[in-house]
């Protein structure tokens, strides 16, 4: 059932699950015998990560990071802060960065520089949703779930004001929820 704040279901739960299963199988094939570590960024990516790793029947480990977001932190340091760092070393490891959505690419651009400094053997990027319309930092995406149009999406981990993460599908948030008239 569609949430009242959702204007349109962009990707149904079934479509998402099917694509995540495909990505998991592809990753499992590519990383067989390589013991990758999947690094995910809180909070939006956790549901994608949880489903993705269960579709990867190979030895692997996971780690989580959290970084401050611009809007929440503008009054403090004025720069990205690592709120939660990796729990284990990734030096010499095969890293797969798991992201829910890549929009401007600014957060991931920062994270990739940070992770490269830790000297992993490789870093590849797996994102569920690629929204290229407003991309500022060029990001080479190795594994992509869906390319989506320039809409404000929620669900399957994605939030607006910390809500809607638990929706099983990817939906378009009604502009009236964030106070905007419908764009032309």
């Amino acid at each position, binding site marked *: 059932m569609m949430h009242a704040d959702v204007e349109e279901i962009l990707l149904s739960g079934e479509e998402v699950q099917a694509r995540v299963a495909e990505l998991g199988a592809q990753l499992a094939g590519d990383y067989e015998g390589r013991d990758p570590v999947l690094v995910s960024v809180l909070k939006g990516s956790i549901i994608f990560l949880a489903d993705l790793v269960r579709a990867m029947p190979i030895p692997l480990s996971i780690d989580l990071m959290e970084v401050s977001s611009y809007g929440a932190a503008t009054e403090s340091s004025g*720069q990205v802060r690592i709120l939660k760092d990796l729990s284990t070393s990734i030096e010499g490891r095969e890293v797969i960065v798991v992201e829910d959505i890549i929009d401007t690419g600014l957060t991931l651009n920062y994270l990739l520089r940070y992770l490269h400094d830790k000297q992993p053997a490789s870093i590849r990027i797996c994102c569920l949703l690629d929204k290229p319309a407003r991309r500022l930092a060029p990001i080479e995406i190795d594994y992509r779930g869906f390319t989506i149009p320039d809409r404000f999406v929620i669900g399957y981990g994605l939030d607006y*004001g910390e809500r809607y993460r638990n929706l099983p599908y990817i939906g378009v948030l009604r502009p009236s929820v964030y106070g905007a008239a419908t764009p032309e």
Partner: protein
Amino acid sequence: MAATLTSSSPRFAHQSEAELARILDFYGVAWRYEPDLFPISWNADGAVVESFAPDFYLPEIDIYLELTTLKQALVRKKNRKLRWLRQLYPEIRVKLFYARDFRALMVKYGRLDFLADVAAMNGNGPLNGE
């Protein structure tokens, strides 16, 4: 030399440009404000009659950004200038950020208060389309 937003920052033409500079600073992306002026039309004598100076250049990414929060009629004029720029200088990369793109960024970062302030200063409705 790339800039960061400090007390000696450039004088931005619009508050939205200063906000974008703050976002770039936040994510550690180096930027320069209006560093280059590109001639885009000339008269019969060869004198430059029209130029285009994109708002930002991001040297590490090698891309120019033009931010527009203007009315639709002026956006069309800017689109035309951008089209000429791309034809005359195909080697440079320019990305135009429309009002709706900037608005979406502000929504994403929870900066609706900033949008409202800018709209009030401009005498526009706060979140309407162009």
